[in-house]
């Protein structure tokens, strides 16, 4: 067991390292660099950057050096925990990502909890009462939820929210709290802004989960052990929740690996549309501006979380599913 864990750990470290290299290389693949996007920005405000100035800037930022040297410089700062300077923001990457990371987690966890709270009961219901009107309704609504692009839903809900409910538009805070230090009032302000993004982010996932849960459970319900349980006179509620539901949860556990990076990156487009101060829009802007330290750090972070998440889901599977445990012992 211990050797297995150590093996996984070493492999995970190697994977993270490979991700860091890939992230850095891929971000530099498109033509141009941060200086070219800086030049574009300058001419937008009527300025001009001569070729000599551009060269001087490249030297200043170290962009004229070979990619390997740039990568090593970045790695040095990653190890120091600063992750380099965000070129466009002119602040250390750790600071730029800092608060946004926590807010992203709050939004995403709220969205995931909402998804589970809605999807699991509905999924169980529509499996147990297959082809009932309730099942049809859940299926219908579920498919609509799956079909409507969430950014569109976000735009529509935002406009309706403004027009009929006088809600403030987008963001996670009112103006007066955006920069304020954390306080109870600020948390309350956040809580007031949270339902809309959580709902929009959650809905798309909900439909999908309902379908998965329903299908899994339907498979299990037909199996003989369920019949055996019923025959023994176990109450119906207990029959379903204790055995088939537990087995049907299996796929959920194995997808937790992807859940963690999702918690951090959120849905980029929805965050952008709703103007949420989360990591998603930051990543998009960093990629557009070819800010490789900021973009690279975010990608690295996502990679790290995927690796950690996969590791966790392996452990979770061991715990949920006795069959895998048995195989492990063999």
């Amino acid at each position, binding site marked *: 067991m211990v050797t297995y864990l150590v093996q996984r750990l070493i492999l995970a470290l190697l994977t993270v390292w490979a991700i860091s290299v890939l992230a850095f290389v891929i971000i530099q693949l498109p033509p141009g660099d941060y200086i070219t996007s800086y030049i574009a920005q*300058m001419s937008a405000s009527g300025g001009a950057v001569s070729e000599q100035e551009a060269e*001087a800037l490249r030297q200043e930022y170290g962009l004229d050096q070979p990619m390997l040297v740039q990568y090593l410089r970045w790695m040095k700062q990653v190890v120091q925990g600063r992750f380099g300077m965000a070129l466009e923001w002119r602040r250390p990457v750790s600071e730029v990502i800092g608060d946004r990371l926590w807010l992203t987690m709050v939004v995403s966890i709220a969205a995931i909890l909402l998804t589970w709270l809605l999807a699991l009961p509905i999924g169980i219901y529509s499996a147990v009462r297959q082809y009932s009107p309730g099942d049809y309704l859940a299926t219908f609504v579920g498919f609509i939820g799956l079909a409507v692009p969430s950014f569109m839903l976000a735009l529509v809900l935002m406009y309706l929210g403004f027009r009929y409910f006088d809600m403030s538009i987008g963001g996670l805070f009112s103006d007066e709290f955006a*920069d304020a230090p954390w306080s109870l009032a600020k948390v309350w302000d956040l809580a007031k802004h949270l339902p809309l993004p959580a709902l929009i982010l959650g809905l798309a996932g909900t439909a999908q989960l309902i379908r998965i849960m329903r299908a899994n459970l339907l498979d299990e319900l037909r199996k003989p052990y369920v019949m055996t349980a019923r025959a023994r006179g176990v109450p119906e509620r207990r029959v379903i929740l204790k055995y088939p539901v537990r087995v049907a949860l299996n796929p959920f556990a194995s997808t937790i690996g992807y859940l963690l990076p999702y918690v951090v990156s959120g849905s980029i487009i929805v965050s952008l549309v709703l103007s949420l101060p989360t990591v998603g829009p930051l990543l998009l802007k960093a990629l557009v501006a070819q800010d490789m330290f900021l973009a690279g750090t975010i990608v690295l972070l996502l990679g790290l979380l995927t690796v950690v998440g996969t590791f966790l889901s392996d452990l979770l599977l061991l715990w949920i599913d006795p069959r895998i445990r048995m195989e492990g012992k063999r």
Partner: protein
Amino acid sequence: MPKKRTAVSRREFIRDAALLSGGLAAVGLPGSVRGQTAGARPKLGAQLIGKLEGPELILDPAKWPKKFSEAPMLADLVKQGKLPPVEQRIPKEPLVIKPVHEIGRYGGTWRRGFTGPGDAENGNRIVSADKLLFWEYTGTQHRPSVARQWLLADDGKSVTLYLRKGHKWSDGKPFTADDFVFWYEDVYLNKDITPTPHPDFMINGKSGVVKKVDETTVIFEFPEPNYLFLDILAGSTAMGGGQALWQMQGRAMGAYMPAHYVKQFHPKYIGLDAANAKAKAANFDGWLAYIRNRWDWRLNPELPVLTPWKVVTPINNPTWVMDRNPFFYEVDTAGNQLPYIDRIQMTLAENLEVLNLRAIAGQYDLQERHTAMTKLPVFLENRDKVGYDVRLDPALNGSDATLQINHAYDADSEVAKWLQTADFRRALSMGIDRDQLNETFWLGIGVPGSVAPSETTPYSPGPEWRKKWSTLDVKQANALLDKIGLTKKDSEGYRLRLDGKGRLRIELLTAAGSFVPHTQIAEMIQQQWKKIGIQADVKEVERSLFETRMRSNEQQISIWANDGTELLYLFPRHGLPVDPAEAKMGHPIADWYASGGKQGKAPKDPELLKALELFRTANGKKLPERIKIAHEIFRMMIDGQYSIGTVGQSPATMGVRIASRKMGNMASRQINAQHCRTPGTSQPSTYYFKA
């Protein structure tokens, strides 16, 4: 904040639902609005364009106020002994302003939206009172700003600026001629900071000199006559554009700098090792990066400035906040020190839809940047309910979507040949239905025609040049194309190349995310050119790739606004290929022009060559001659259709002003131009909140 809200009727609800079913994008152009532009009924936009007006300057000291007063928040600080009294804070010769409507009252926070650290212009323009000279609200006459008076020598070889006695930086230290000398000797002449001299401070390739005459007098001297330099000092240029604009994002121009503050980071004054050590201590790579950060007004709250407001929360935060500068040099006619408004607070909007929706919802007090013209119907629908006014400020340039032809294109010799043929360009121009573009993308508010600037500007070559080669004439266009030899067509009716390589395809390059929807416009032109048998390929790329392509001379025709050409000499890059920093009409030609023929390639077209030679002589000419030359250049550019104009003089770029009805001293129309730093010439310092 409680807002009165009228009930929404069922009909309204159903209509909204119908609109939303098509997505918010469709809200932009409901049929009812398109319908209004037809026939004799006044166009939607015409009702929203008011009379040009603005604040006036009182230059006669006899009419100046004798007693001064200040904002309550500053009066408190004076009482506590933290600030000197107002009489000692403003210059002995302040800039006295008569606000456009009335004397305002102090207080309030002006709420706005911005889109991130790249959106510096959002604030730069508001604080542009730190320019050396400026323009009247009409945009044509020079007027004092930081400098109270100027003198252009008869021989054109020098401009003297007279500063205000007792003028102080925002930290209370005196602002004098030494701040100019410091900038010139230790920043401009320092090769580490400024590797190449700036064209705005040169005449015929020779740099100017800054000299101190006395504490409040500086002189800019040139080896050759440079009559244009007065315009340069008033324009949004590297010399006259002000500290805020020209010392941000790593720039080091602006002609003056707070010497007493910047010296503490400069190796000449503290030694190279100490300068680098300071930078390292602040987590910067070296002194150069650090000193640039220290003189960037958006990033450094400690920086002394001359602007009406100074930053308290830097731009790289979720909100960008500025507070009043207690030492600001302007007063109103009643002796109140400006600005009236205490604070400007901009909140980050991650995308433009949210920003526009927030403006519609009344979350901003005044917003004219990023508010899109295509959203006008939604703005209008909500204005009474939310309580704001919509005002349109048309620009002066001729074309918001200009087909900039690359006259140095050489990657495909056949395409290059046609692009360099005047009749080909004329045919392209006459194949464009500008009225259709105007109705679709400008709501019928724009003016269709050539690249010529508005007839109200001095450089306009005359009204007859608006239409020259610039109206829809499919028959003549086809005749011209036949005449130059493009007679063979394929089965779909598109003209074929002469070298036998199939259909003649012309690429229209557009940049994503521009203020005007250039890509969609290009797609409509693509449809229109079918009638003249020309196949256009529309290609949209990200903005920085757009610029990169330009620099490597890969584009055939690119689409961009020709903003700035209304003052051709101050901002020629959208009208002539003269500036290598942005040369959509041919980068090698701009290199050739800027290097005086040492690099790049001269234009092959003799007319274009003549236009460039004329342009080169203009800086040394006096104003009447300069105007004549500009007329001639515009005539040549339009007759040869070197760039093809479509629709312009519209509010499409920063011209849709959403102003809360609580805001006072809002001009019913203001000039909308880069050189006026809109809303700069409207003096944002005189805006106020009504009781």
